[in-house]
């Protein structure tokens, strides 16, 4: 039983990581009905921006570095949208898919060129630098050690921090989308682009807003998880696959769905792999953990493409 609970906890901890890439992906899908395959890489470069500000080139306060990195990442996202994607008809998926894949490779190679492919040593940890609560995250554990509580379970403090941060991000997103004029316009564009134009919404600006918001959140997520999954250009490669599955599972146009999807994928992965490892004949499957999200993705897209919480009209692809 303890083992099962431990697996659940591990699954949730991993799931939080997937959510941080799934949520921005869904934001961009809502705005443009397109999948941004480069989402992971854009988040990764956001984390590197923070690294540069906090450690490599300057020695800023980590919180300040994070904010700057988010702004820079948002600007990068907006630039990509404006220059490379704006001129294409959103109903024709081919150019945009190819372009986002291209951006994926370019950003990855660019990062690899500048920072090489090895994990960086001195990774800034945002959670530790937080006023008041930072020491709780730092004091009793880093991700290398852990604390076992009375139930005999191993919970890592910075995972708790990550999940907390995720909840705060979700709340902020909910506020932005549902209680501001920009957010309303965004949801309008997501719902009916033609009518948005007829209401006077400048759709281009909203798209930029969506991309900027998504990239900023993606960068924040990457900065939070970097200490855990190491800071190197390929850090988001496997995460991307899980996040695709998470976004599809939760519903491609549902932000809450993406968050839940991330946790679901994490849980599923942890529990399934845990039990498969115990079965002799199948134990080698644990060497190919990516198989699970691929199968999940196929199953979801086959039977219920709108996922759990998405709207049926997502079918308009």
């Amino acid at each position: 039983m303890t083992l099962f609970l431990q697996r659940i906890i591990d699954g949730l901890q991993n799931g939080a990581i997937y959510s941080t890439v799934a949520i921005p992906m869904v934001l961009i899908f809502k705005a443009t009905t397109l999948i941004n395959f480069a989402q992971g890489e854009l988040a990764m470069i956001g984390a590197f921006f923070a690294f540069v500000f906090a450690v490599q080139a300057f020695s800023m306060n980590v919180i300040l570095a994070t904010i700057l990195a988010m702004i820079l990442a948002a600007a990068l996202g907006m630039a990509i949208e404006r220059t490379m994607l704006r001129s294409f008809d959103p109903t024709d998926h081919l150019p945009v898919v190819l372009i986002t894949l291209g951006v994926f490779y370019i950003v990855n190679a660019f990062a690899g060129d500048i920072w090489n492919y090895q994990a960086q040593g001195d990774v800034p940890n945002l959670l530790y630098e937080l006023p008041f609560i930072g020491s709780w995250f730092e004091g009793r554990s880093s991700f290398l050690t852990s604390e076992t509580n009375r139930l005999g379970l191993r919970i890592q403090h910075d995972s708790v921090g990550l999940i907390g941060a995720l909840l705060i991000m979700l709340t902020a997103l909910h506020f932005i989308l549902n209680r501001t004029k920009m957010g309303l316009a965004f949801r309008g564009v997501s719902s009916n682009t033609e009518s948005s134009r007829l209401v006077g919404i400048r759709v281009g600006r909203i798209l930029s807003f969506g991309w900027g918001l998504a990239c900023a959140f993606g960068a924040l997520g990457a900065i939070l998880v970097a200490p855990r999954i190491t800071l190197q250009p390929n850090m988001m490669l496997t995460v991307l696959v899980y996040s695709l599955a998470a976004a599809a599972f939760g519903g491609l146009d549902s932000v809450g769905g993406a968050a839940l999807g991330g946790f679901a994928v994490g849980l599923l992965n942890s529990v399934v792999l845990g039990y498969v490892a115990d079965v002799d004949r199948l134990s080698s499957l644990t060497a190919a953990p990516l198989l699970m999200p691929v199968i999940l993705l196929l199953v979801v897209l086959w039977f219920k493409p709108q996922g759990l919480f998405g709207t049926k009209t997502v079918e308009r692809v």
Partner: protein
Amino acid sequence: MSEIMLEVKDLTASYGQVDVLRGVELEVKAGEVCVILGANGAGKTTTLRSICNMPVVDCAGTVKFAGQDISKADTGGIVAQGMAHVPQGRGTFPELSTLENLQLGAYVRKDNEVDDDIDRWFQMFPVLKERKDQAAGSLSGGEQQMLAVSRALMSRPKLLLLDEPSLGLAPIIIEDLFGTFKQINEDEGTTMLIVEQNANLALSIAQSAYVLETGSIALSGPAAQLRDDPAVQEAYLGA
């Protein structure tokens, strides 16, 4: 007051390789209700889209709105200048609530009377108030049409474009609807350009009318005159 609210000259439009409009000319006077009749495929929707310069259409020509040349303006700007367009099929935001739809209608407004206007349309269409927190996509056809019209009027437009507002609605509802149009035109003085296929009712509330046939104007004149024209009667009034 016979100032010209909308003036369209040499309007051509196409979707990719397909030419739809071949030189449309029309004029709508301020405060009047003008109807465009035409069969399927004549280019009525395209005309309205071209007037708003929507990106989906490649159009060229001169369009003047309240004296201003809007031929090259973008749709957002045109709306901000006081034009509202209710597209074919209602054009509501299905996932958003009725209330949010109305709020979006007032997107270009910067004053603080928006809530008053919302209440006003709720008064005129009580069923919208009942369903104000419901997703717009769950409303019936007639209710969505009321919502779409209210949404358009939320921006307090000078000119209202309506694309086949009767499509898919029951006859009783259509009668009510057009009665409402007439009332709004009389109370607010809102100029209206209504595109319709089956047009008895439309002609009865209009002052002037045009007939669009395969991309250009075939007939034009006062509404009453067109209504009495036997050719028009046969083709469009089901006589």
